């Protein structure tokens, strides 16, 4: 098990790997599929699409969601869009270019073959979703509309207003509904997986808790698919849904699945800034806003101070007194630089004292020039000569509203300011986790029969995720990759028959789940679960956030360990176990975050290079064009760090999957 075999097909050109592979894998005959059960944990874009497709193929699917309905998975909150190399705009897009952008955008820390496959199936995703009735935006000729996204030079992003994730998820949900109606998916809402059951070295089932009754249940299957999303909530404050958790992924890690690149977290540049200590989560504003919004802070410190004191409004600051720092520093990409670059640049300006809100942690995202530009264009289209300034603004605002109306409304509701009239304030926040369960080309973890898809696995995005690529990976894995690869494994299981839940392996797993729950209910300590979660979040943000250094990471590891020990002594969980008990649910999740956080810091410590969303202060370009920018170290760190569980997170053992780049030359990323 110590050797990581990526199972990437060898001896075939990159562009033929997936096709050749599909031609050669084992298939399960339709009659035999009826004899096979598959458990899918999580029903967002990845789990939902996988459940629907596996059921469509004929497998018996048991799908688990902690929410009351698959329709509420956090994929629903993705705003901007989904990439696909359709080249409908004729601007030079291709599979290769999407592949290239993704590998480069991920700072060359992803597996070439996986990414090429992703680019290849991306076009198919759009066809599939349109067939399901997903109402993508259209142009006046009735064809699909596209926009461009951060870090990319072509228009390949398909969207449904600012609610693309919602519509894609509802598409997957509707596909699930069809299979639920046919009886091919058995849906377990308000259920949480609390452990995996391994029989003879293979994943054969899970222990789940019914979150309404508290009942502990055993479920068996021939394979288990983990599609439980990311672990961004390890920071307490993040753009994730409150319930998003790492429990399923962490539980399989403790039973033998290697956890890869836990320190790769994406910090999203365009979130609504934090306003106070009571804050429960952060809200993201789609990155698509950067297509039309210009980011700036005042040039003069006296203006900054006057703004903070409320004596000056941003609209009163003259053009020449504004520092459009992204356009200044990165002329080729300007406001559309990748997320990590935009995030760090915002932090740099705020650290230098130019932040524009009370906490000093905000920059402006300004739509004034876009409104003017669109207004003038509209006046021309509508044949209005000598349009007044007000009329132009009005026309321009209408266009901006059509593009981003719901985002502007959301902003106004939260901040109580009208972003059409005054620039938005934004600041980076923890968003997507690129790290996750290590999987091979088949998306299988290091536990045979246990798969991980979507954000729960580590693949495809490398050290950084480009905009509009999470939805793409979730649906690619669920609709088009896993349903093939899982067949290769299940072909050996057609004679196995139903897996019994009445075995010692299920007994043991259930026993440990019950013991843990009993502990929480009976502990009666002095601090709430949130008390610990907030403390953990603070350590993570300060020492394992946008920039990290050796000393901070070492301190973080020992602080997290100490916090974890205190948690197990002093946590209190009110209520009972045989009923709905949200505090009990949280306790189990935070217990897992308290372990994962330490592994996160350990991984970050080990990776002594800056890459992707991860800026290591010791690793920075000292001179030349790129002076002050992140310095990647391909010689020593072009590998996937896969951690094997050995008891305490600090004792985890590192396994390296060396990354090969045969079709892409490793280049320094430059957005200058």
């Amino acid at each position: 098990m110590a050797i990581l075999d990526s199972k990437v097909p060898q001896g075939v050109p990159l562009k033929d790997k997936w096709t050749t592979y599909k031609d050669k894998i084992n298939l399960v005959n339709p009659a035999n599929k009826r004899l096979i059960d598959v458990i899918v944990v999580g029903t967002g874009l990845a789990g939902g699409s996988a459940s629907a497709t596996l059921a469509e193929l004929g497998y018996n699917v048991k799908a688990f969601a902690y929410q009351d309905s698959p329709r509420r998975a956090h994929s629903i909150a993705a705003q901007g869009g989904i990439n696909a190399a359709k080249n409908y705009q004729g601007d030079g897009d291709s599979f290769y270019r999407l592949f290239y952008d993704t590998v480069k955008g991920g700072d060359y820390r992803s597996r070439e073959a996986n990414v090429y496959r992703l680019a290849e199936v991306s076009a198919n995703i759009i066809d599939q979703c349109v067939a399901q009735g997903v109402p993508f935006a259209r142009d006046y000729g009735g064809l699909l509309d596209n926009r461009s996204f951060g870090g990319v030079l072509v228009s390949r992003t398909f969207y449904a207003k600012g609610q693309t994730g919602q519509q894609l998820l509802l598409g997957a949900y509707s596909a699930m509904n069809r299979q639920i109606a046919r009886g091919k998916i058995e849906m377990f809402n308000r259920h949480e997986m609390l452990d995996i059951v391994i029989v003879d070295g293979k994943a054969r089932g899970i222990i789940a808790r019914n979150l309404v009754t508290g009942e502990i249940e055993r479920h068996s299957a021939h394979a288990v698919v983990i599609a439980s999303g990311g672990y961004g909530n390890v920071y307490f404050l993040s753009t994730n849904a409150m319930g998003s958790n790492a429990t399923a992924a962490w539980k399989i890690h403790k039973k033998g699945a290697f956890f890869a690149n836990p320190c790769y977290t994406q910090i999203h540049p365009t979130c609504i800034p934090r306003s106070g200590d009571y804050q429960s989560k952060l809200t993201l504003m789609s990155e698509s806003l950067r297509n039309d919004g210009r980011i700036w802070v005042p040039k003069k410190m006296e203006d900054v101070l006057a703004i903070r004191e409320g004596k000056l409004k941003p609209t009163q600051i003259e053009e020449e007194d504004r520092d459009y720092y992204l356009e200044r520093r990165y002329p080729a990409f300007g406001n559309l630089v990748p997320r990590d670059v935009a995030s760090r640049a915002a932090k740099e300006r705020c650290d230098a004292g130019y932040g524009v809100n009370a906490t000093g942690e905000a920059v402006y995202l300004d739509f004034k020039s876009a409104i003017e530009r669109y207004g003038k264009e509209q006046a021309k289209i509508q044949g209005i000569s000598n349009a007044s300034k007000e009329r132009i603004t009005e026309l321009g605002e209408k266009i901006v509203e059509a593009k981003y109306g719901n985002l502007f409304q959301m902003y106004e509701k939260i901040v109580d300011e009208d972003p059409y009239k005054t620039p938005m304030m934004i600041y980076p926040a923890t968003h997507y986790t690129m790290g996750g369960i290590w999987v091979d080309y088949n998306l299988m973890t290091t536990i045979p029969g246990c798969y991980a898809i979507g954000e729960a696995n580590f693949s495809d995005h490398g050290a950084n995720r480009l905009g509009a690529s999470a939805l793409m990976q979730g649906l690619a894995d669920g609709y088009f990759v896993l349903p093939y690869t899982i067949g290769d494994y299940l072909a050996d299981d057609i004679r196995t028959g139903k897996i019994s839940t009445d075995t010692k392996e299920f007994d043991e797993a259930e026993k440990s789940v019950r013991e843990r729950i009993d502990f929480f209910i009976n502990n009666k300590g002095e601090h709430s679960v949130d008390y610990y979660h907030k403390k953990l979040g603070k350590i993570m943000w300060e020492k394992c956030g946008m920039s990290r250094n050796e000393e901070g990471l070492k301190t973080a590891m020992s602080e997290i360990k100490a916090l974890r020990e205190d948690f197990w002594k002093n946590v209190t969980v009110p209520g009972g176990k045989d009923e709905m008990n949200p505090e009990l649910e949280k306790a189990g999740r935070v217990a897992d975050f308290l372990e994962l956080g330490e592994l996160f810091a350990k991984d970050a410590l080990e990776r002594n290079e800056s890459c992707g969303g991860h800026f290591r202060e010791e690793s920075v370009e000292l001179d030349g064009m790129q002076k002050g920018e992140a310095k990647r170290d391909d010689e020593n760190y072009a590998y996937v760090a896969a951690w094997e569980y050995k008891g305490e997170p600090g004792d985890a053992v590192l396994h390296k999957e060396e990354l090969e780049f045969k079709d892409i030359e490793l280049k320094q990323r430059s957005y200058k």
Partner: protein
Amino acid sequence: MNLTLKIWRQKGPKDKGQMVDYQVSDISEHMSFLEMMDVLNEELIARGEEPVAFDHDCREGICGMCSMFINGEAHGPDRGITTCQLHMRMFKDGDTITIEPFRAKAFPVIKDLVVDRSSFDRIQHAGGYISVNTSGNTQDANALPIAKEAADKAMDAATCIGCGACVATCKNASAMLFVGAKVSQYALLPQGQVEAADRVLAMVNQMDEEGFGNCTNTGACEIECPKGISLENIARMNSEFLKASLKG
């Protein structure tokens, strides 16, 4: 600000339930309503009492999970928002706020403010989909041009988040706005035409079976809908239903 909260407490589905008074202090106007509830719950835990169970998840107005009935209104006294987007600046110092679960026969209470909205799922199971294979062998997406207006209208209908505010606010606990939105999305798109008649009949039938009331054109649902789903969708569903019934 300091507030008095009157909150519905109900231990389980079979428990009788009652309103209980709580005091909270030092509430900032910048907090969201749910953050105010978090503050209350932390205080209850510190006092050794059980926190108030309530549904919430994304806290950015899109998952449709949060569901409180505040001062007699679904999602509280502001328009076009969910409870998680409601801010305490809507209230003032000394206010008394009444907080109840969404009440409808088809939404049984599970605990405190948490209700079971799986009836919405079952309506979707009955026909809220297009019967297309998920194999990926579908035709090229641009082979099916759709007028921008139709796509935009379908998108407006599809914007429904399934929160149930329409049901909670309707004097008849009718689900017509929700079902109308779902029926409309597919009725407006060419992909949905083949099974349009079966779909509307099945979904309406399931809606009745779940125990939702009928629409009496009061229009409160449209006013309280956080996503501005319009009554036009109910009209479209009725017309689709009529067409399908006559055909049948």
